């Protein structure tokens, strides 16, 4: 397994901004840092499955933090990923009620960006309820909203992939999907408040 040493942090940060660049960037992060992050979990009461699950979340959070300007290059990507892993793992241990194990984890340097990371982790925890609701939507709705909000495709491009009669029909369908999703969120009133307060802490 080789690592492309010419791939700079700067290039990596530019790539994660767009869905089309994510694969290359995340593959590089896996090849360069997976072993280090895995070692941390294994040395702190986790097993290799824990490491696999957690490192996926680390990668997702890292990409999102970069996109939202929460990673400002104050540390190397490696250090930032390491801190993210440690804090996510502590949160996970805490959820499992393993307080004793959490207390076994100590840190060498509490970095200045820890607070940003912890606020982001709290937001991600709150957001899980909304992503779970999104999974309840029909497949067609999920596809339309994903192509529009994540892939950033135009209605014309989405039309090719979804085979609706015309753009207006597709547009109406998108609004219906969005309305269905907002109704789902409103039916779970605590979800909204929970996510909103987590988002406010993040600002």
């Amino acid at each position, binding site marked *: 397994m080789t690592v492309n040493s010419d791939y700079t942090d700067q290039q990596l940060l530019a790539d994660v901004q767009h*869905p089309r660049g994510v694969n290359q960037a995340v*593959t590089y992060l896996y090849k360069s840092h997976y*072993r280090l992050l895995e070692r941390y979990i294994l040395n*702190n009461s986790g097993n290799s499955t824990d490491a696999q699950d957690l*490192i996926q979340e680390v990668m997702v959070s890292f990409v999102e933090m970069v996109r939202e300007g929460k990673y400002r290059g104050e540390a190397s990507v490696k250090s930032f990923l390491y801190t993210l892993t440690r804090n996510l793992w502590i949160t996970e241990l805490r959820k499992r009620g393993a307080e004793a194990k959490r207390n*076994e984890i100590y840190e060498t340097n509490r970095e200045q960006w820890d607070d940003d990371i912890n*606020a982001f982790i709290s937001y991600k925890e709150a957001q899980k309820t*909304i992503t779970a609701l999104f999974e309840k939507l029909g497949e067609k709705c999920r596809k339309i909203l994903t192509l529009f909000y994540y892939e950033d495709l135009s209605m014309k491009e989405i039309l090719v992939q979804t085979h609706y009669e015309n753009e207006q029909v597709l547009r109406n369908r998108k609004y219906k999907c969005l309305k269905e999703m907002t109704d789902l*969120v409103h039916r779970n009133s605590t979800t909204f408040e929970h996510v909103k307060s987590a988002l406010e802490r993040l600002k």
Partner: protein
Amino acid sequence: METTQNIDRYLNQEMSATERENFELELNQNAVLQRELDTVRMIKKAVQTTALRAQVKQVHEAFIKDYEPEKVLEQEAKIRPLYPQRGRMYRGISVAAAVVAILVFVGGYQYASLNGETLYQDKFLPYKLPTMRSQNVKESALDSLYATGNFAAVITQIQSKKIKQPQDLFLLAMAHLNQKQFTQALVQFEALKTANAQRGVKYFEAEADYYEALALVGEKRYEEALDIFEKIYDDPTHLFHANVSQWDLWQLRMLSW
């Protein structure tokens, strides 16, 4: 449905300037509309996260398929010609001679000013306990004492415990190290290793490596410290790998002489 449509058009910047102005005016006066807007924003982010997670999962699965957990990363050896071209060789020799002269001078100065105390100060990293400010995790009395730098009290409190857990032994060693009581710190690092071996766990393994090496520097047992630092330096996955440089190894070799 119309509200959802308007919000979506607003967020996607599909409104005209007048429409936008009117919409923002209504937003300021209508709490329900504001809540709807916040909800759509949350949904948009959730959609993005879900899609991103699926994308990362694909990369993860492709990576794990070929991942060999036990294999140590190897640096590719670069093969260089034994004899460079003749003209370049002479230029190279003269440049090398100048570099050697500078290195001898700098090295001589460094050797004269080298001492274990400076090395210890350079390499010592304050060790802090994790805090979860965003969550209400209650800090233990011991954590508080350590966090506030009351190392003498940490030592007293841990020593009074009948059964010491690995984390107690580690904290005890670190408290001694912070007080520059190197012999006692080394005893506790040794006790930690024994406790880990008995339980079949590796708590603070990497941390103990690094700080034990520092305690050995404090004790002027440079050769033993060098062994540990070399182990850390040679292991790219070691937690403290980035904290040990060739220069540190060189200093320890000089001090060992």
